[in-house]
């Protein structure tokens, strides 16, 4: 357990508001980016962003500092999104997280221009944003966790509550889907 993780765990036990302020600032971009990619919606990502930190405050005593704080943080955010989605669609958690399903974790309406696309397009120089919003959120999620947040496969398995082999297969498929979309985008 690293010193940083120990300090965070102790601070969360005490519900130290200064520590929480610092954590919010430190992880704001990463958490928001993750939520934006997972929900596909700017407003929703903002709501979940706030709710995630409230949950961190309330459940902080459960963080033991044995894993990276960001992995625990993403796991909390992810569970909030899944709980919310479950409350909208009475399905099982497996259905929602199974990559073979039609629209796993796909919250945005695909027939309309995605809010994710609108947000991303503002700063887009390439068509990666367009391509990203075309692939299922379950793949976007692993791509973000691995290649933007740079989590290890084992840490991702913890965040997603799936076996390592599932993480790998989602990464292969996600990368392949993104590559395919980018190639199609370049061809048009």
């Amino acid at each position, binding site marked *: 357990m690293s010193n940083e993780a120990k300090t965070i765990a102790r601070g969360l036990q005490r519900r130290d508001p200064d520590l*929480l302020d610092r954590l919010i600032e430190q992880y*704001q*971009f990463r958490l928001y980016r993750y939520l934006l990619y997972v929900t596909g919606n700017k407003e929703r990502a903002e709501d979940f*962003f706030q709710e995630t930190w409230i949950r961190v405050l309330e459940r902080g005593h459960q963080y033991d500092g044995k894993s990276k704080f960001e992995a625990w943080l993403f796991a909390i955010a992810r569970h909030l999104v899944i709980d919310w989605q479950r409350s909208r669609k009475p399905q099982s958690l497996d259905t929602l997280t199974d990559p073979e399903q039609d629209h796993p974790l796909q919250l945005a309406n695909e027939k309309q221009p995605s809010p994710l696309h609108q947000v*991303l397009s503002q700063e887009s120089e390439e068509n*990666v*944003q367009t391509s990203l919003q075309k692939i299922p959120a379950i793949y976007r999620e692993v791509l973000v966790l691995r290649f933007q947040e740079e989590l290890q496969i084992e840490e991702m398995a913890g965040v997603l509550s799936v076996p390592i082999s599932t993480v790998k297969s989602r990464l*292969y498929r996600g*990368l392949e889907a993104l590559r395919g979309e*980018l190639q199609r985008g370049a061809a048009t």
Partner: protein
Amino acid sequence: MSANIHDRALQLIARAPVEGLPEADSAWLRAHLEECDFCSDHARHTDRALRLLRTAAIPFPDGLASRTQFRVRLRAQELREHEPRGRLLWFACAASWIFGIASAPYVWRLFAWFGEVTGMPKLVWEIGFALWWTIPALFAAAVLLLENARQTEEPDWLKQDG
């Protein structure tokens, strides 16, 4: 060149960024990419996808962090205010149970005497005694359930659409 060789190359291209490659596989792939345009193209596109993914910029909403910090501080204050109440409740329950256990033999006799005086069936006053004993626990459970229900009440953002 056989299809198996291309398949192997494509598998290694996919594996490389996900879990890395052993040196032997990496050397084999480099050699193959030098002489195969199709796989080389595939590798280039995969690299490009990764590069773009790593550099994708997302604007962060103004004031979101400070709004969140404010909300978290408010909630922390709320939780701190509830802590003494919770402790008091547990203390009251503990004191009540200790007193209940200590006084149980006397209360039992009291219920027995009352049953005898009123001619009540034994089962009735025994149930009365059991109820008397469990009332503090039931009361505490009800208070805790109400408190939990209030705390886990659906937040506004959850009700906004549906």
